[in-house]
């Protein structure tokens, strides 16, 4: 009996392993047909990549949080908050200071990490439910940036800041490069370091991790810091693209970030996930959006389609886990 379940597991595993890739290809074919001939144009494709890279970068950090058994609802507000404060910081320097831009970038990374650490501290040290903690900080970040900006747009006074977000490098927009680089880095961390190993073990069964001499607190804390760091990157990419931040920007980012992870096969219950999967999930969400636009479907329906895709992805997970 035991041997048989192992065999059937391998059969299932192979299918499941390829199912994401297959879905990706099928989606690509449909999008090509629906959006013929514009979909396949380089300009359109790079556009899709740019669009998904903002939430995509965050979804990479989110993947680690979900693997640890947590969730972070505050990433959207946190992006607006970090972006807004960073522009205030940038404006302390002169209108053409390149040093200012570099320092601001670093500042955003640090500020994002600190915000993430705040969430992480409450989850790991005070053992609060991640959903509640980040629901709280979601309001806090949003409210603070609205207060600091007097509910108005925060404009950058730096002439060159906008270049960072709108430029291309080797044919790809800068944010896409960050999406890829963070993806590679986190993929290595997840699959090839002891932290990644401990993370999955903790998400799978915290008791086992504790009894295996793993410092569970730190393992649960770090994903929030990493996610804060990715929020810092997105905050700079987004605000430099527009050269400003509106305090109501970036709401709903948490949805997209969670959706990308779930579509990519990360288990909502924790313990298992893949960065490559999340990257594919993010791109698939982008293709779906693009396809709906090209197909002339109302923009109002796009959220409904996204919601539908998430539910189907979770349903597939659920069924696979139950067999």
């Amino acid at each position: 009996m035991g041997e048989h379940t192992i065999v059937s597991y391998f059969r299932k595993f192979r299918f499941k392993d390829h199912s994401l890739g297959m879905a990706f290809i099928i989606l690509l074919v449909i999008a090509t047909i629906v959006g013929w001939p514009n979909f396949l144009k380089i300009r359109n494709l790079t556009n899709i990549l740019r669009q998904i890279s903002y939430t995509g970068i965050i979804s990479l950090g989110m993947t680690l949080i979900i693997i640890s058994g947590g969730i972070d609802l505050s990433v959207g507000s946190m992006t607006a908050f970090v972006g807004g404060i960073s522009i205030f910081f940038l404006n302390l320097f002169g209108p053409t200071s390149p040093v200012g831009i570099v320092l601001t970038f670093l500042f955003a990374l640090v500020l994002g990490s600190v915000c993430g650490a705040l969430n992480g501290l409450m989850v790991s040290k005070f053992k609060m439910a991640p959903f509640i903690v980040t629901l709280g900080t979601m309001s806090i970040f949003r409210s603070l940036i609205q207060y600091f900006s007097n509910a108005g747009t925060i404009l950058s006074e730096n002439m060159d800041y906008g270049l960072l977000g709108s430029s291309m490098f080797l044919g790809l927009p800068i944010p896409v490069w960050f999406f890829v680089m963070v993806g590679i880095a986190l993929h290595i961390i997840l699959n090839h370091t002891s932290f990644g190993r401990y993370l999955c073990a903790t998400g799978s069964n915290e008791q086992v991790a504790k009894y295996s001499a793993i410092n569970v607190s730190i393992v649960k804390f770090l994903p929030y810091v990493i996610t804060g760091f990715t929020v810092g990157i997105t905050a700079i990419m987004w605000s430099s693209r527009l050269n400003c931040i509106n305090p109501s920007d970036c709401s709903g980012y948490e949805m997209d970030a969670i959706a990308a992870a779930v579509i990519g096969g990360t288990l909502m219950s924790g313990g298992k996930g893949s960065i490559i999967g999340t990257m594919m999930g993010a791109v698939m969400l982008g293709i779906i959006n693009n396809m709906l636009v090209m197909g002339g479907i109302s923009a109002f329906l796009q959220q409904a389609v996204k919601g539908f895709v998430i539910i189907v992805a979770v349903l597939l997970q659920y069924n696979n886990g139950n067999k």
Partner: protein
Amino acid sequence: MGEPAILLELEGITKEFSSVRVLDRVCVSIRAGEIMGLIGENGAGKSTLIKIVSGIYQKTDGIIRLAGKVTDIPDYITAKNLGIGIVPQEFNLINYLTVYENIFLGSELHKGLLLDKSAMREEAQEQLHLLKMPLDVNKAVSELSVAEKQMVEIAKAMILDARILIFDEPTTTLTAVEVQTLFDLMHKLKQKGVTMIFVSHKLQEILTICDRVTVLRDGKLVSIDQVGDLTTQSLAKKMVGRDFNQVFPSKIDSKGKPKILEVEDLGSGTLLKDISFHLFKGEILGFAGLVGAGRTETMEALMGLRKAEKGSVRIAGKPVRIRNAKDAVAHGLGYISEDRQGKGVVMNYDIPKNISLISLKEKYLRRGLIDKRAEDAASEHYIKEFKIVAASKKSQLRYFSGGNQQKVYLARWMDTDPSILILDEPTRGIDINSKKEIYDFIHRLAEQQISCILVSSEMEEIIGMCDRVYVMREGRMAGCLEKEQVTEENIVFQATGVKKV
């Protein structure tokens, strides 16, 4: 006179899981009012058979006759209505509900639209009284001991007037005293005319409580015998299909060896008080006591997994401070938890990932990254050494049998090169062959001068393996037995404070 009527007849029961046959044309007739033992190794098909009878699984082929009538049992509820109750191995009780609420779960009494709580309380009380169970119906289940929870499960089945009551390995988590209580209860039920099926892989228990015993092996019926015609030896032989005599290896004399571990006045909250003991190098030291006596808690406090306010620990004569499990590992301590699934193996990890979990940083990092080749090589080594049976080392642990999971768990701790290994109920829920392998393994460890502490509720195991045994009672050390003092009688006396009758 004549034979009592056949109540339940299973004819040619076959079960296949995706074309693999786990039960092959099994025929068993159970007489009204008897206790039928069902024995076999893990994977022999015991669980599958009782799950078919209780409606959890569907048979692929065969006929079930209940009181002479061909009966279909498509689901659990039908089984319940037919009067077939099951006391599951893992309890299906809801912790924060009270005893009576659990007893009536799914079959609540109503007064109009509302629950009739007083009637349920009364009836539950009466049922418990009939079964002579000293339980308060208003107590929350979370406050009950394992044995008491089992009583609730039995009452839950009996409230539906079960005619057939199935016990699925009921004694796994019980101590000797509690097992006796259970057997007394079963006798009472028998007098009331309840037919029982008792599933176990403990030979002695089967011979004590059952009238007849059915032996299954590899999904096939081996035999049905009157208990009087059997001995533990002959039953074991039927079960494993070959002679099985020497279960325990010879004992190891640790006389004149130095003390490797000394624990003094260990205390933790209200659970543990004044725990002192010592361990010699290369010794197999036993820890006996009832469930809840504080043995596991002692080991957890020693490992830094539980806060200890008081006490000092010396390893090889040197005082050490252990604040967390990491410190314990650094001092050469290892701890195999009693809760293999909850605290032991990572179910969705494969063999290499499970084995390297603790020793990852020390052994398998190369330039900060995991050296998966080294990990695989180590796994191959342990698979050979422990005879771990797996389709592939890359398959997840959740598809393994209990015995193989336990071996992987052992391998993980062996990979930390411990000098002291604590084994908490290391053979719980695993088949007899794996048990013997684990005993031999512990013996080999001791020969290699690795000191072992064996915490066990299985009397035979403690007596068979250990030369020196500490007995705990209610969070304190009740006594230490040596050599010929190590007998069942003495252990029970120390563990309960009363002489065995």
